[in-house]
């Protein structure tokens, strides 16, 4: 058993740390640390800086501008970004579509789309879920019918994150109703500016706008935008989901949030003592810290087995469940630690140009909002119930 990084890995860690230190914009970091959404421009500037360094798509092959990072390098990079409060790289292009194109796309598709992801010419979003197809994704109904060199797409997608920013969407569509539902699905790339596409905002319960509904009415899509073979889209989608589910532990982010929570609790008073001294609060906090410490090891164990050539199976489901629940626990305790101040919901107080009354502590401006917003973490990317189904099937063979 050896938990240490190699010398090379340690050097890489130092390099990442110093890059972040030199390049992160403080006002963006503050937004990230307070959990409020950053703007599209914030993201784009950050993507550009990373791309200049060659780190926007570190796991990609060198021929496409990547660094061929292994799981440990990827882990180091993500953890350092997490603790520094760097914006998350918007995953839909570089993290999700790109692996699919590299494995299943045509040479033209790869050569055309991959560079544009790095330059930021395209902002991708993901068209998977539909109103009737959430956990049961294979039941999706949005149809694509071939007419000569085009597909005509009709239907509706939902829960589409950042569709309001995107100019491209990759979609699962139904191209056949024969056989099992999984067998009639294709994977296609659609220009968001095509006639017949309408995007409607979904406002979440905290009042923020991240997700959208997208309506497709007779949308013409060039047939060359089909990825791989017609009716084989389910295979590509599953490949993508496996990719999506690694690295959900979020340990560094959660550690950073715990530090912030501790600071809040040191400053707050209960019974005229620091809240951190209150036995019930201290006990809640310590339990979360221990859970997180355990998760850190659980996550490293999974990484180590991937590094040793074992495929990550249901382990990523375990990490999805724990990562989401621990982050929710922290958000929950942060809300509790604010006492009556938790009523406040003034996310704008964290942005420039706010001219309302000062919110103190500043974290209170969006703490309850964030708590409610983050209930999504156990719902999206395969709900935790779906993860338990996976564990039950793959690891327990029930």
């Amino acid at each position, binding site marked *: 058993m050896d938990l240490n990084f190699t010398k090379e890995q340690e050097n890489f860690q130092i390099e990442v740390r110093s890059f972040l230190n030199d390049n992160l914009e403080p006002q963006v970091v503050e937004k990230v640390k307070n959990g409020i959404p950053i703007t599209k421009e914030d993201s784009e500037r950050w993507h550009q800086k990373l791309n200049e360094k060659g780190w926007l798509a570190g796991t990609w092959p060198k021929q496409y501008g990547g660094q061929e990072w292994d799981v440990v390098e990827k882990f180091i990079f993500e953890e350092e970004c997490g603790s520094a409060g760097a914006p998350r790289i918007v995953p839909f292009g570089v993290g999700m579509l790109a692996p699919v194109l590299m494995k299943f796309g045509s040479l033209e598709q790869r050569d055309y789309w991959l560079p544009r992801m790095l330059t930021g010419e395209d902002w991708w979003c993901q068209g998977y879920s539909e109103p009737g197809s959430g*956990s049961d994704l294979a039941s999706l109904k949005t149809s694509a019918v071939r007419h000569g060199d085009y597909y005509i797409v009709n239907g509706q997608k*939902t829960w589409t994150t950042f569709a309001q920013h995107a100019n491209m969407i990759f979609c699962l569509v139904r191209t056949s109703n024969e056989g099992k539902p999984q067998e009639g699905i294709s994977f296609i790339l659609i220009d968001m500016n095509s006639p017949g596409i309408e995007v409607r905002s979904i406002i*979440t*319960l905290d009042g923020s706008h991240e997700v959208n509904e997208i309506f497709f009415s007779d949308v013409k899509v060039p047939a060359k935008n089909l990825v791989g073979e017609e009716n084989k889209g389910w295979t590509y989608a599953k490949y993508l989901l496996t990719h999506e589910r690694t690295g959900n532990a979020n340990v560094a982010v959660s550690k950073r949030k715990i530090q912030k929570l501790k600071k809040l609790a040191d400053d707050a008073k209960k019974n005229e003592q620091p809240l951190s001294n209150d036995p019930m*609060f201290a006990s809640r906090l310590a339990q979360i810290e221990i859970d997180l410490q355990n998760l850190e090891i659980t996550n490293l164990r999974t990484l180590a087995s991937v590094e040793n050539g074992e495929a990550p199976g249901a382990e990523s489901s375990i990490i999805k469940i724990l990562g989401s629940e621990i982050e929710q626990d922290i958000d929950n305790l942060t809300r509790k*630690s604010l006492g009556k101040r938790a009523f406040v919901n003034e996310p704008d107080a964290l942005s420039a140009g706010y001219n309302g*009354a000062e919110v103190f502590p500043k974290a209170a401006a969006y703490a*309850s909002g964030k708590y409610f917003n983050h*209930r999504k973490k156990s719902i999206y990317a395969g709900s935790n119930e779906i993860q338990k189904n996976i564990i039950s099937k793959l690891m327990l063979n029930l």
Partner: protein
Amino acid sequence: MDFKPSPERQILFDTLKKYFENEYSLSDRNIAAHSDLGYSKKAWEAMRDLGILESLIDPELDGFGGTALDISTVFEALGRGLVVEPFLEVGILAAKVLSRGNDAQKSLVKKTLENECLPILAHSERDTEYSKSYVETKLSVEADGSYKISGAKRMIKHATEATHFLVTCRNTGDASSEEGISIACIPTDREGIKIDSFATIDGGRVSDLTFTNVSISSEELVGELGMSYSIVSHAIDTGILAICSEALGIMERIKELTLEYLKTRKQFGVPIGKFQAIQHRMAQLLVEIEQARSSVINATIYFDDETEREKTISAAKFSIGKIGTLVAEESIQLHGGMGMTWEYDLGHYAKRLVLIDHEFGDEDFHLQKYISL
């Protein structure tokens, strides 16, 4: 043994329930609740016309209710409606305090029934101090026998529209001492008062108030100088009973919404309510909600028993806090993405239910209080 409400109360509850179902649309409520005012004046008037405020007020102050059972019945109905208008602040907190005041102060209660004034209790201070006796705001006695108040009050709901503040303050004792607390009832336009107001997550504006050398005459004290803790304490206990009952109404609505969703939402070809894992979680929620209701009934029964009131109130607030958060989180999870949207009712009920834990002491505070009693 009989747990049924009296026929009159049952009628009142049914009337309110029907009213909220038909006349108090949640989308209108949400617009009002998150407006600069924080509630709807029109709805406030319409509901007062129904006699809701009277049902919270003692007959001797021109109401026709005001007992623990009245309050619990009405607030459960208000919870079902997710009512954001200031019934708690005016009909409970201010009314209970003013009913212990002099004739002029008592008459303010009657005026609230005519919509001629809107008195608001300004008691809460440091965000994480939930003790009822926590008052730092200073009352100083001037040479001429009048008083001045200086200090800060925090997280006061519906303060921006208030006509009067009932300000707790102290001239003696530690910040947590029960002795030395006074209450001053003053118009909100009195010099030296500053109001900073914020939007809230669950609806209704909330304000921080700053009092700087605000002058008070001796007739403006409610009760005797330094002796008003019991008034505040009783008003807040009544407030706790009210919001615990509100939480019951909210949980019942959440139960209805969730059950309906489980029956209609299909995945893998069947309603998701057919999945046993979901059934068992829903059954557990139902068990918890029944226990929450029992805790409120218990607090209602003992409300007028001086030796038992605080303990049963703390047990109820603890139960509501713990179970309420569970119900809110589980119901959102069982709804999947739908539970996360502004457009759908559930999330708004869930937000209010969770935030009730932040009013008058959270589950930890009341468990500790229960232990100490």
